[in-house]
């Protein structure tokens, strides 16, 4: 199913295309879900849908509510308000061991007193599958995550990356319809992390089930997901495909959290673009105009002075101070000649403008009483 670009998060039920037969293609639906811990509001009236078979990421800084949402789906926590449904069935009061959902934990949570294959086969053991069959299934899972030959080892004897795969195999062996992953790659080094990202993506395609992935690393979310939900402060600010999130951020937070952005508030916007609306522009969409060059009708131009230039290998990052005092980040190719202290003229196309809204998805409009 091709990923949609949606600017709004909750898709009304009527527009969900139903497959032939019975299956509801919405794996998980949150309706007005809140979770309060005393005075602390971890989730504030959040509503969204996750579709069957998609790789869905929940992205945000710590404390934004993404992990809370994950735990609500897994069943370790219950919402203070609102409804959560799993394949159309309300899961209120259903404990984790009754849900068709499995989790890969951040610290892997392997059982130290069991061997690798016993860990992987644990879900089958509690379902009283005979030992021989369990072993075969476990072996098959280990092969899928490329860990054949390690079946008899103990978790303590494995490297971080290997433990992570065991946790993955263990969660998949039950053939859940939904797999939850709680920042699983955080403890790995960069190269290993990138390799695992590719493998996880391929694995999800191969297995075909819904993956729900929690991370604070926006690069990771963009690389792997079909759709991303950006969380901030207990609310979802935007849901959409990686490209939609990146090219058309809805709010200042999304613009700043996903990739880098130059943010302009309503007051400074007026002289620049003729409208008093807050907007953002990516540094790589801004260019330096040569002396005398004009940018064209659909472009916005401004004068400024180059404050600093940083060499970043693949490109240069220049900080330009505009006449009105604002500082703008500009990313240009490394072979451009840009001198700190020199006067310059920058330009960007109108299509690069992302107009920002204040309100997060599903939350109160600006001015409405919050919480």
């Amino acid at each position: 199913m091709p990923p949609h670009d949606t600017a709004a998060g909750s898709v009304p039920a009527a527009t969900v295309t139903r497959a032939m037969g019975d299956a509801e293609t919405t794996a998980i639906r949150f309706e007005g879900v809140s979770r309060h811990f005393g005075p602390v509001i971890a989730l504030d009236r959040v509503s969204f849908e996750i579709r069957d078979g998609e790789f869905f990421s929940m992205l945000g800084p710590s404390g934004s509510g993404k992990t809370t949402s994950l735990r609500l789906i897994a069943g370790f926590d219950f919402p203070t308000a609102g409804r959560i449904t799993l394949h159309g069935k309300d899961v209120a009061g259903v404990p984790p061991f009754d849900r068709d959902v499995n989790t890969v934990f951040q610290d892997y949570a392997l059982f130290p007193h069991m061997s690798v294959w016993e860990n992987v086969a644990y879900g089958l053991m509690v379902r009283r599958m005979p030992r021989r069959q369990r072993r075969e299934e476990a072996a098959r899972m280990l092969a899928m995550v490329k860990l054949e030959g390690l079946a008899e080892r103990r978790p303590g004897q494995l490297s971080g990356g290997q433990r992570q795969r065991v946790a993955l195999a263990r969660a998949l062996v039950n053939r859940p319809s939904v797999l939850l992953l709680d920042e699983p790659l955080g403890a790995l080094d960069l190269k290993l992390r990138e390799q695992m990202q590719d493998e996880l993506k391929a694995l999800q395609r191969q297995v075909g089930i819904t993956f729900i992935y929690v991370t604070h690393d926006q690069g990771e979310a963009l690389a792997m997901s079909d759709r991303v939900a950006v969380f901030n402060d207990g609310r979802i600010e935007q849901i959409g495909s990686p490209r939609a999130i990146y090219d058309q951020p809805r709010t200042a937070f999304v613009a700043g959290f996903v990739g880098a952005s130059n943010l302009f508030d309503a007051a400074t916007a007026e002289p620049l673009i003729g409208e008093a609306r807050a907007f953002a522009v990516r540094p790589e969409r801004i260019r330096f105009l040569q002396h005398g060059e004009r940018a064209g009708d659909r472009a916005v131009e401004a004068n400024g002075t180059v404050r600093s230039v940083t060499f970043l290998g693949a490109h240069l990052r220049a900080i330009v101070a505009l006449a009105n005092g604002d500082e703008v980040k500009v990313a240009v190719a490394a072979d451009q000649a840009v001198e700190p202290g020199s006067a310059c003229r920058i330009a960007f196309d109108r299509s690069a403008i992302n107009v920002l809204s204040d309100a997060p998805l599903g939350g109160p409009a600006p001015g409405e009483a919050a919480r």
Partner: protein
Amino acid sequence: MTASATAIPRLPDDSWPRRISRVLFAHPGLLLFLLIAPPLAWLGIIYLGSLFAFLAHSLFSIDGFTGQIVYEVSLDTFDRLLTAANLDVIARTVLMATAVTLTDAAIAFPIAYYAARYASPRAKAFFYLAVMLPLWSSYLVRVYAWKLVLAREGIIPWAAEQLHLTWLLEAVLGIPVIGGATLSTSYIGTWVVFCYIWLPFMILPIQASLERVPRTLVEASADLGAHGGTTFRKVILPLALPGVVAGSIFTFSLTLGDYIIPGIIGSSRPFIGQVVQSLQGTAGDIPLAAAFSVVPILVMAIYLTIAKRLGAFNAL
């Protein structure tokens, strides 16, 4: 989905364990209650109950004639507690506890210091076992050992003779108040045995808190120009103090209540523990026994409050 022939068996949905688990999961308070009820009932009813019942007797009094307990609340018993003779007993016990605590701190510190800072892992294991084994082996055996050592015909007089130090031994025994006819019938003897018995209680917390002093702090101190002695006084000692106070809680409290050691080794002048024991035994004066018992509890309550301020609870 990967093609596979084996089907995953369905979860047994409604067996009794599972139904109970659902209830427990939905009501975590219930689970907590079930977990804590038995131990709480035991400790609360059996232990606290009997403790309060006993201590409450200090508010009753004894009829002088019949020797029966008069169940009327009064402070008479506390009046009887605060006589000169009884205050003597209390003072004696508290002084001994103080002396023991100070001595043990002095002996324990080098041991703990060495074990914490300079011992290799193997040596640490050795030290640890060397301290733990006496601690957990029989209290009575260890007291008994000292009875042998301090006996009149025992090792110390023999060693003194061999080293021509008999005059020293007799001088020590001649010290007024704390000396005596033999070591085993003097306060000195009692003090030595107390120090010996509680020493491991002092070593362990000190070692633990010394080990918690980050090496980087000591290095920083040296880096900033301080000599070893200064570093010790200004950096290590203050950080080790909670451990010393924690250990002192044990030595002080255990000495306050002990009645066996003074009974076996020492002068015949009684300590609190012995008084309490004789009062509730043959004398049958439970109210006064309870009143006496209140003293070490009160002293320890005050001591613990001070110790908590000094951070000793984190070193336990």
